[in-house]
C-alpha cells in the first residue's frame, strides 16, 4: 500500500519526494556501529568546531567518562559510556556509543513546527532554519528521543544538521570524517542498512549475540531513522527509548476520538434538553 501524501506514520520510502522535491538525490544518513567506538569523542569536537556550537558545561558529572550528558541545543553528538560489571565473575564491559539526532522518516519535530522553520532537505535530513525559528518550543516535547532543545539565552532550537552545508559541497559530515575507527559511517541509507545487516551477522557468528540494530526498520514507530545504530545491549541501557513512536502518529486517531467525544457530548446534551420537562 503506497503511503498517502503527508502521512504521519508508516513506511515512507522516499521522504524527500514526499516533502515535495522533484528529483531529489539518494537519501543519506548515518550508521553508527557502536561495536567499534573507542569513546574518543572526536565526533563531539569535530561537530562543535564545524558548526561553532558553544561549550555547554564544565562540570564533572561522574557518569563514567560522559560529561556531555545528553543531546541538546549545544551538544549534537553525545558519546555515552556505560560500565557494566557482572556480579558473578567480575567480567567488565564498557559500552560506548555516539548518539545523534535520528533524522526520522516521520519527524515529529518537523510535523509540529508551526513556522515551517524545520524542514526536510533534499537529502532526506531534517534541519532547523535558524532565521525562521521563533522559539516556541513545540518541537521539544514532540521529539521521541529528546534530541532537539532550546539554547539558553537564545530561545531558538538547535540540533544536528547532518552537516547540510558540507553535503552541499559533496563532503561527508564532520563527525564521520573525524571518527578514526569508522564507527560513524555516512552514505546512502540503503547501502548503510545493507552494510549494517552484514555487520550484525558477522558479530553473531563471532559469538557477540547481543548485537542488534536500532532504528533501522522502516516499519517502526518513526518509519525508520535516517541515523540508525548497532547496539550491543538493550536500547534503554544506552538511554534510548525502546519503542520510539512519532508523536503525531496518533493524531488522526486522537482527532477521531475527540470528534467522537464531541459528538457524544452533543448527543447527550441534546437528549437531556429534549427530555426536559416544560
Amino acid at each position, binding site marked *: 500500500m503506497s503511503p498517502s501524501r503527508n502521512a504521519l506514520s508508516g513506511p515512507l520510502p522516499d521522504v524527500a519526494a514526499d516533502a515535495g522535491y522533484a528529483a531529489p538525490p539518494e537519501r543519506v544518513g548515518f550508521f553508527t556501529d557502536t561495536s567499534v567506538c573507542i569513546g574518543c569523542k*572526536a565526533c563531539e569536537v569535530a561537530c562543535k568546531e564545524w558548526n561553532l556550537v558553544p561549550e555547554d*558545561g564544565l562540570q*564533572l558529572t561522574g557518569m563514567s567518562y560522559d560529561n556531555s550528558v545528553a543531546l541538546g541545543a549545544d551538544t549534537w553528538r553525545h558519546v555515552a559510556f556505560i560500565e557494566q560489571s557482572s556480579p558473578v565473575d567480575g567480567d*567488565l564491559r564498557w559500552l560506548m556509543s555516539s548518539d545523534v539526532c535520528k533524522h526520522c522518516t516521520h519527524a515529529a519535530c518537523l510535523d509540529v513546527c508551526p513556522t515551517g522553520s524545520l524542514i526536510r532537505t533534499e537529502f532526506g535530513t531534517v534541519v532547523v532554519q535558524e532565521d525562521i525559528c521563533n522559539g516556541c518550543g513545540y518541537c521539544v516535547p514532540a521529539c521521541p528521543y529528546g534530541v532537539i532543545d532550546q539554547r539558553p539565552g537564545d530561545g531558538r532550537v538547535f540540533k544536528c544538521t547532518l552537516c547540510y552545508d558540507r553535503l552541499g559541497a559533496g563532503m561527508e559530515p564532520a563527525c564521520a570524517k573525524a571518527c578514526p*575507527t569508522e564507527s560513524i559511517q555516512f552514505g546512502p541509507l540503503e547501502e548503510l542498512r545493507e552494510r549494517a545487516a552484514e555487520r550484525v551477522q558477522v558479530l553473531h557468528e563471532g559469538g557477540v549475540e547481543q548485537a542488534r540494530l536500532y532504528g533501522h526498520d522502516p516499519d517502526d514507530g518513526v518509519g525508520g531513522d535516517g541515523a540508525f545504530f548497532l547496539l550491543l545491549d538493550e536500547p534503554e541501557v544506552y538511554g534510548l527509548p525502546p519503542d520510539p513512536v512519532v508523536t503525531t502518529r496518533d493524531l488522526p486517531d486522537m482527532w477521531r476520538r475527540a470528534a467522537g467525544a464531541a459528538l457524544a457530548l452533543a448527543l447527550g446534551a441534546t437528549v437531556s434538553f429534549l427530555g426536559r420537562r416544560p
Partner: protein
Amino acid sequence: MAEAHPVGFQWVMEAKRRGATVIHVDPRFTRTSALADQHVPIRAGTDIAFLGGLINYVLENEKDFREYVVAYTNAPAILREDFEDTEDLDGLFSGFDPQRRAYDTSTWQYAGAEPAAASGERDTESDTSSADENRDKESGRGDRMGAAGAVSARPELDETLQHPRCVYQVLKRHFSRYTPELVQQVCGIAPEQFHFVAEEITRNSGRERTTAFVYSVGWTHHTVGVQYIRTAAILQALLGNMGRPGGGILALRGHASIQGSTDIPTLFNLLPGYIPMPHAHAEQTLDTFVGSDAGTTGYWGNMRSYVVSLLKAWWGDAATADNDFCFDCLPRLTGNHATYQTVMDQIDGKVLGYFLPGENPAVGTANARLQRAGLANLEWLVVRDLALIESATFWKDGPEVETGEMEPADIGTEVFFLPAAAHTEKDGTFTNTQRLLQWHHQAVEPRGDCRSDLWFYFHLGRIIRTKLADSTDDRDRPLLDLTWDYPTEGAYDEPSAEAVLREINGWGPDGRALSSFTELAADGSTRCGCWIYCGCYADEVNQPARRKPGSEQSWVAPEWGWAWPANRRILYNRASADPAGRPWSERKAYVSWDDDSGRWTGPDVPDFEADKRPDYTPPDGARAEHAIGGAEPFIMQSDGRAWLYVPTGLRDGPLPVHYEPQESPVANPLYSQQQNPARETYVHPLNRYNPSAAEQGSQVYPYVFTTYRLTEHHTAGGMSRGLPYLAELQPEFFVEVSPQLAVERELEHLGWATLVTARSAIEARVLVTARMRPLRLDGRVVHQIGIPWHWGPNGLSTGDAANELVSAALDPNVHIMETKAATCDIRPGRRPRGPALLELVEEYRRRAGVTERTGTEGVST
C-alpha cells in the same frame, strides 16, 4: 593505545576486523580494554615479572622458534666463566660496586672477547666527573645504538645450546623462578589468565604467524624502564617475531614528533643520528672520538663519515681536514646534564638561563615542586608556548606562593614569554615512532607575535652572530663559523623549513642532494645534518611530503612519507627470511633472496646490502658492513645477532630482573634486593621518598598509584585545558578508585579526596569505578589508584597536578623518571591551603619516619 593514540588505534581495530586477537595488559580497564579481546589487570611496576613468566613458559615448553633463535640471536654465545647471575648473588649481577652504585661490566662479556676499549682509554682524572660520567666510562657508552662500541670480538658459539654458559642456558636459569605462581604473587595475574596469554602468543608465533607488542610510556617511566623493553625484546626474539611482518615491538611515544626530537636530538647526550656527544675530558680529537668504532662491525663502523658530514653541514667551509673538521667546535659534556640533574643544578644556583619551548615542567615533569624550585632560581627563563602555561606564571601564582614558601618579589628569575606558532601555522615534519617522516604544510599565518621555533632560533642566532661579528675572541669562532644561511620568506622572514630538511638530508661534492647514507664520506666532501635521515630529500624531492594513497601502491605503501633509514619500513627485515634467504613461510614472506638477479627482493627496502649473498662469510679483518655475514640480520650489532643477553651497553644488567619500583608496598618476592641497585636517586629535602615495603613506615603510604592520560587532554594540559571543546569533555581533575578502596577509605563517588606522598599533597574529585580492581597477591590485597596527570592551575579546566606527588627516581640508562608506579595515601576531603598544606605533608613524613636516607639505598640491606 585507544586513550593516547586514538587515530593510530584504528589500525588495531582493522586488525581485529581481520581476526586478530587483542590483549591489553594494564593496571586499569581503559577504553583500550573495552575493545580488547582480553584485559589483563596487572600491578603497576611488575611487567618484567609478567614478561619473564612468558619467557620462562616459552623456554620450559620449548616453544621458541628454534631455527631463528640459533641462527639469529646470541643464544648460542658462550659467556665468561666469572659471570654471576642474580640467582647467584640474591638480586645482583657480578661486578656491582656499592660505593659508586654502578657495575663494572667486564664479567658480563662473552668468553674471549676483548674488554671494552673505551674504558681502557678514558681519562679517569676529571675534576668535573660525576657518578654518572664514571658510569659512562664503565659501561661502554650505552647511549650508542646497538652498543657496538665496546665489543669487538665475535663470541664463541654452541649451536646445540647445551653449553652451561651459553646465553640460552643462562637465560633459562635466570628466568626459571618466573613461574605462573610467581606471576600471580608479584603481578596479581591469575594463572588461568596467564596461561591464556602464554598460549595465545606462542600459538600465534613461528613460521606461519607473528605476534606484535605495542607499548608506550607505561613501560618506559620506571626505574627499570629500559629492562622492561629488554624483556619484551627477549620474548619476541625467542618467538622469532623481530624483523618480520606483523611482528616486532612498536614503541608509542608521548608527544607528537618526539621521535624526531631524539633523531635530531634535544637530548643532552646525543648528536643527530644517535651519535654520542663528546665528553670534555675524553675524546680530545676526532680520531679518538671515532676511534673505538673504527674497528667495529656493522654500519657504526662508518661513524667517521657520519660525524665529518655532520660537522661539514654545521661549519661548512670552515670545517677542513686541517682542523679536524671543526670537531673542537662541538660543545662537550662535563657530566650529567640530563633534565633532573639540571634541575638540581638550578636549585644549587649553577644554571643561569633556561629555555622552555613547548615544555611545562612546573606541572608536567616529575616532582613539580622540585621543578618550580629550579625555575625560581635562575637569572632568566624563556618560555615559548601557545598559551601562558604554569611554567611561565609560577612566580606569581604557583603553589609555593599559596603556601607562602615563595614571595614573587623575591624570585630573581626574569621570565620572558614568547608566543609560539602552532603546527598548522608553519611548515615542517612530524616523525612518528615507526620512523616515518611526514611533512606538514602551513595552512594559515600565525597571528600577532606568534612565531615558529625555527624562526625563533634562527633569528636569535642571527642576532647574536651580528653582535659578535667583530669579535676576535677564539671562543666566538664556533658560533661565527656556523653555516647560518637558510633562505627566509614572507612578511616575518620565516626560514625555509624545506631548506633545513635538505641540509639534514645532505648533499655531495656536486651540491646535489644525496640519496643514501652509504654515500657519506669521511674526507669532507659530503654534508649531512643527520645520517639516518639521508635520503629524505633524494632526487631533490621532499620525500616526507609524498601522499600516494595506499590503494595505489603495495601494502607496504613506501610512497607515503619517508621512513629512516633509507625508507625502510620494517627494520632488520633480513630476519623475515631463513639463513638461506628463503621466506620462513609464504604467508609471512617479506624480503627474500633472488638468486637469478643476485639481490634481495620484496615490497620493502631490504635492511641488508642489496647484493650480499646469504652464504657470504666475512674474511678475516673485514670492517664495518663487510664484517657482517650473509645470514646475520641484526646489522647494527657487532655480532649481527639479536641480543637476548646484553654483554655491554646497559648499566643495570645484561638481563632484566624483577625489581620493585622505587616506592612499593610489596617486598620483592624474588630477591632481597628490593629496587634496581643502579637506579638514580636524588637526596634533597624536596625529593624525599616514601618508605618501601621493606622499610618501617611504608604502611603510612599504603596504596599503589599510577599516572596516565585520557584521550580528551594532552600531557600537562597546556594544549587542551584552555580549549573549551576539550575542557568540557573532561572538565575536572579526578582520580579513579575501586569500590572496595572507596569503602576502605570512606571515599564517595564525585566527592573530594586528598592524596599524600613524601613530596606533597593534592586534591581531586573521586570516580568510584569497577574498572579499577584490587589485586590479590599471595593472600594480600593491593589497591591501586589511577591518576590522570593532565591538570594544573592555569586554563579553563584547572586542578592540582599529579606531578606534585611523583618523585625524581630514574632509570640509570636513560635518566627517565618513574611516574607509573609509586605509593601514596588517600583520604576523603579537600586538602589544606596555605602553610597548612606543608604541615599535612610533614605530619605524614613524621609518622612514616621519612629521612633523607629513606629509599636511597643502592644495595638493599
